[in-house]
């Protein structure tokens, strides 16, 4: 159980990508994101007490994948923790370090470069080695099974998801040239009922942010605080779970809302940045996180602008922070998800605050 006694603020953020293929090396990508973050926070490496990174060894083709970025994240001779899960989980761990009083300023960094290999092929190695790996099943197939389970009793579901994908692709492109529902429903079947354009395009990228204690802020100066933290892990075997709902996200959201003092999420959240890699997941998010039509969802298209695994949730956090910085809205939520059919779920509540 976390303690909200020490407020945590997000001091700055930056990213590189998403790009379908970034020709730079992973350290070059990460350095770009970290330098942008430090500039944004008006800080230098010397201001950082500790680092939390997020990366997955099998996606990078090496173990341990954090050693490639040790220097560029400024972790040499500093305490570093690596999270092999979504970057939002890394941000939660960094915030917990600050709340616990261990550090005042923590840099959070996530990276992934799926263009290096066949990403979904690699996801097979994240499954039970005896039973599931021998079947050759991967995360893409699990997404199809989940969407199929949701569509089984809902004949309008696939058309709705095409509409959601069209909306997010339009928000992401901003040029009015994105495909409409009809084109999406005619795109190639990937794993029924999901079609190619219902799947957020995989991309390379890195994202970072600096979290710091929020109780030493300049009085009267607006800052963005992480007021609610929650994460959850469901059973790994998807056959143990009810796929038409996300009990893990319900639990993660409930923890984050309780932490932030939110009693009615349907009325109290202005903007939501969910990690939606497949169109059906947006409905799971809305239903499980208790989001209503009063909330703006993914104003810039979310992951349909480019889905960088592991980076996704942290990029949702920085997108939500950017939204709050530019607007006077009070509260946003960022969501992260990882593992087969969303086994891992994370939720962070962000608030505009004036100390």
């Amino acid at each position: 159980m976390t303690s909200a006694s020490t407020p945590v603020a997000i001091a700055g953020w930056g990213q590189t990508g998403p790009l379908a293929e970034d020709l730079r090396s992973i350290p070059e990508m990460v350095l770009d994101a970290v330098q942008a973050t430090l500039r944004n926070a008006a800080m230098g490496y010397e201001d950082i007490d500790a680092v939390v990174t997020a990366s997955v060894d099998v996606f990078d083709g090496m173990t341990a994948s954090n050693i490639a970025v040790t220097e560029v994240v400024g972790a040499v001779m500093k305490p570093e923790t690596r999270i092999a899960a979504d970057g939002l989980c890394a941000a939660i761990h960094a915030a917990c370090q600050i709340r616990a009083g261990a550090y005042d300023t923590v840099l959070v960094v996530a990276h992934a470069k799926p263009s290096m290999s066949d990403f979904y092929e690699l996801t097979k190695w994240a499954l039970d080695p005896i039973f599931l790996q021998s079947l050759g099943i991967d995360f893409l197939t699990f997404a199809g099974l989940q969407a199929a389970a949701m569509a089984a009793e809902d004949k309008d579901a696939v058309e709705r998801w095409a509409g959601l994908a069209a909306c997010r692709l339009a928000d992401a492109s901003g040029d009015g040239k994105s495909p409409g529902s009809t084109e999406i429903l005619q795109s190639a079947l990937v794993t029924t009922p999901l079609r190619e354009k219902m799947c957020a395009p995989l991309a390379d990228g890195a994202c970072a942010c600096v979290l710091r204690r929020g109780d030493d802020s300049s009085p009267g100066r607006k800052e963005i605080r992480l007021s609610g933290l929650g994460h959850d892990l469901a059973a790994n075997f998807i056959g143990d779970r009810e796929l038409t709902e996300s009990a893990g996200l319900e639990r993660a959201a409930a923890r984050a809302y309780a932490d932030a003092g939110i009693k009615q999420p349907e009325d109290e959240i202005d903007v939501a940045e969910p990690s939606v890699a497949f169109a059906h997941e947006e409905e799971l998010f809305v239903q499980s996180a208790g989001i209503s039509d009063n909330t703006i969802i993914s104003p810039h298209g979310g992951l349909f602008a480019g889905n960088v695994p592991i980076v996704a949730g942290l990029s949702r956090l920085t997108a939500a922070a950017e939204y709050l910085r530019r607007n006077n809205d009070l509260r946003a939520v960022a969501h992260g998800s990882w593992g087969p059919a969303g086994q891992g779920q994370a939720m962070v509540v962000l608030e505009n605050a004036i100390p």
Partner: protein
Amino acid sequence: MTRPVIISHEMDATWRYASGVAMERFANNLLERRIEAMQCGECKRRYLPPRPFCGNCRVPLTDWAPVASEGVLEAWTVVYLPIVDNRTGITRDGPYAMGLIRLDGADTTLNHYVAETDPACLKVGQRVKAVWREELRGAIDDILHFEVLE
């Protein structure tokens, strides 16, 4: 920007996983075309594939319960992309169907291939039956796939 040097990297390694007591019995049962689940003494949930611990009740599992090789298709998807079979290295071209099957007597569902690949012929709730390999070897692919019964 000029295109940088791209260095190909291939990993090749072999692991020898201990099956554990639960999977050992499961595998030996497959050699006799028999399937058993493990049942939690607290919640009574019957887990398949079997495992040593109930994650919900946080208690070890020791009780076995027979389940049928027939059951109900709880979810299915037809995949149009090829996959590589990890055991043989042979590519399985699409389309192929993957299902979640609740065998009679089990409370959780089992991932496996479904023989039918025409989406129009598949629906949730259909009865399905395991089709066994002729030469059994004590692994999950002793079940080749599940066929639709109706």
